[in-house]
């Protein structure tokens, strides 16, 4: 009897052990898709990268951030390898439009990923994807363009001569865009928002009169005082020399002359480093040849798009586009972070210049237009950048040879997706 009882106990223990082993061995496998961290590819490096990472880490997100100025190529290589980031943040929506057309981006509208009421036109332009026209990206940072920076201590300049412009065409793999910004602003201020929007949508030929006028005006300005200004612009990087305080405060390579004004977006203050507080800005109209009154404001943004629809990625996306996310970001950054969200908070530092930028970004008295080159298909945009460089490098003032070249590219790209809702 006793033996039976012992045997039973041994059997019971063995059975319990087997059940336990089965439970442990039969645990469902870890879902790696859901478990892996959210990957974010963005344009920020250095302190901006630190701020962004602190923002996500502060909210307890499991994420991996990769920051590079050469993100177009990195993104393409990741997409081709079948491992795109979950979220990509980039200014070039024209690039994103191609991914949307290929069905690689998740449509955002009607899914609670952002509050449409908080993003006025033109911040959520629509693009055509596999399932029709949708919103595929939301700006998580905004920048005001159509402005000119100067040293506050010197007062607002009445006139800026060709040799006095701080201009650098260089960038990592995307040289020429500061020139395209000049031309875009000239088109907007001299031809108006309607013409500008038609041009950005590919509905205006590059050889049309408003464009020829804008290019020629830029050429005349840059080439009016010998070859120096154009040459300096070609040899300088838009960020200025490494470790210096941007072009405005740090000086330029190839010349000892100090420049006095810089046609650059609101992000220029990030380049000025310690000198950021000593910079002030004015609307660009007064300095653009042929412009008389402001006819619009060029704006740009860093737009977040979703490649992967998994819950973890949606959560991070929702936070970045939300009012709270934008407020926390603005409040946590040492350098001002501007938001396109109408319910945004005031960025730090809350100085007069920052407040004016926020007001100008909010102001709807003038049409706001997205950076035209950012919304164009990449091939047209790159031709535009390259033509800006070559035109600057050339002796003559006639821009038609370069404009015809870009027009050829544009005609070839007609079948590519173009965006709508560029000005608003």
């Amino acid at each position, binding site marked *: 009897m006793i033996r039976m009882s012992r045997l039973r106990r041994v059997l019971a223990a063995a059975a319990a052990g087997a059940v336990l082993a089965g439970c442990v061995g039969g645990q469902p496998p870890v879902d790696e898709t859901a478990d892996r961290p959210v990957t974010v590819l963005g344009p920020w*490096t*250095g302190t901006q990268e630190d701020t962004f990472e602190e923002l996500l880490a502060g909210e307890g997100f499991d994420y*991996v951030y*990769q920051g*590079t*100025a*050469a993100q177009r*190529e*990195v993104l393409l*290589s*990741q997409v081709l390898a079948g491992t795109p980031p979950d979220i990509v943040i980039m200014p070039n929506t024209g690039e994103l439009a191609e991914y949307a057309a290929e069905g690689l981006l998740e449509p955002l509208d009607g899914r609670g990923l952002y509050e449409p009421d908080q993003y006025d036109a033109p911040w959520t332009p629509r693009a055509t994807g596999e399932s029709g026209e949708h919103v595929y990206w939301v700006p998580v940072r905004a920048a005001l363009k159509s402005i000119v920076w100067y040293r506050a201590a010197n007062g607002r300049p009445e006139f800026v001569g060709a040799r006095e412009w701080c201009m650098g*065409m*260089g960038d*990592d*793999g995307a*040289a020429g865009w500061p020139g395209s910004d000049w031309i875009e602003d000239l088109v907007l201020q001299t031809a108006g928002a309607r013409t500008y929007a038609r041009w950005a949508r590919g509905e205006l030929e590059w050889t049309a009169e408003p464009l020829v006028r804008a290019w020629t005006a830029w050429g005349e300005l840059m080439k009016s005082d010998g*070859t120096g200004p*154009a*040459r300096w612009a*070609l*040899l*300088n*990087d838009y*960020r200025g020399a*490494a*470790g210096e305080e941007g072009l405005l405060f740090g000086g330029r*390579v190839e010349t000892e002359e100090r420049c006095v004004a810089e046609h650059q977006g609101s992000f220029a203050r990030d380049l000025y480093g310690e000198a950021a507080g000593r910079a002030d800005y004015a609307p660009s109209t007064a300095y653009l040849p042929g412009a008389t009154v402001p006819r619009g404001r060029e704006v740009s943004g860093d737009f977040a798009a979703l490649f992967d629809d998994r819950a973890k990625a949606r959560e991070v996306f929702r936070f970045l586009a939300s009012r709270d996310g934008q407020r926390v970001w603005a409040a946590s950054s040492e350098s001002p972070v501007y938001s396109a969200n109408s319910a945004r908070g005031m960025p730090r530092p809350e100085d007069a210049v920052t407040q004016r930028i926020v007001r100008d970004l909010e102001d709807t008295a003038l049409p706001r237009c997205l950076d035209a080159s950012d919304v164009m298909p990449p091939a047209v945009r790159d031709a535009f950048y390259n033509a800006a*460089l*070559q035109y*600057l*490098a*050339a*002796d003559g003032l006639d821009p038609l040879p370069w404009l015809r070249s870009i027009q050829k590219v544009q005609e070839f790209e007609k079948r590519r997706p173009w965006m709508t809702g560029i000005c608003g």
Partner: protein
Amino acid sequence: MRARLRRLARALLFPETVKYRLLRLLTAVLVLGAVGSTALLVSYDKVHRVPAELQARSVPAVQDAVAFRTALLAADEQAHQSYVNGLMDTVGPGERYRQQSGAADQALSRLSDRQIEGDDGRRVVEVLNVLHKAYQDAVYEAAYYRGAENRPMREQKLREAEVVLGRDLTGIVPRLTELQRDQLASIEDETDVSAAEKAGWIAAESALLLLALVLVLAWRVLWRSCGRLFSGWLAVALVLVGVLGAVPLAATYDTQEKLDAVHTALVRVDRTEEQNRIDDGAATVRDTIASTSAAARALPWVAAGCGVAVVCAAGGLLWRLYDDYGRD
């Protein structure tokens, strides 16, 4: 009353007869033998596995990064020379540029395959690839713009290449420097003795020391209580335990020194741009790693030694128990 109960319990559980003392010593031999052998083999294997892992992945990754940097800087120097000597119109950036640039491509491609920094490293290498391509494009475009009328564009492209190559934080060289620093930190972690490894060795050596003590006690019991002055089994076991306690530890110490030497050599290779020094460093690394292979191959012998020691110790005691008490 309580003392009496305790004495009774002890007499029942731990009877002070010779047979039970030998049985207790046998149990101790088996337990300490198992613990000591396991800890020794695991600790020995862990250290001696590192050279092969270094040879397979980490060292080539560091060398590829060094090769990439060296070839890239040499290519840049060649392109610069071609420009300042007025040869760019005729030969473009030059044949040596193409050769070095091709070598940089190869090194970067190998680095992509076997970088050691996990996902972080993969991302850095990805950006390096893109930037390297941007750099090469800029140099070739500079060569494409020929003649005096295109000089501004050529200079623009060369300046662009220079910025892509060396600008703080964002350029190829600063990013590569950071990757190389991380690589060396990884290798330092890999070659350093971790706290877990130290604990493993302490456990192994303590268990072997206690095992030797138990064997001496067992010998004493056999001598005093059974009148047997010499036990061949226990003598062999005792010698083996002594050897196992000393030789693998000495071999591990030696391997560890060599791993430190490998790390130092890699740091030297990483910080130089002179090809001779790179070659010397690579040879040192190769030879040092090769010299650890004998110790790594000794693992089965260590395992056999552990087995024989435990079998001899337990066998000696079991033999005596069977011989003297088994027929009761």
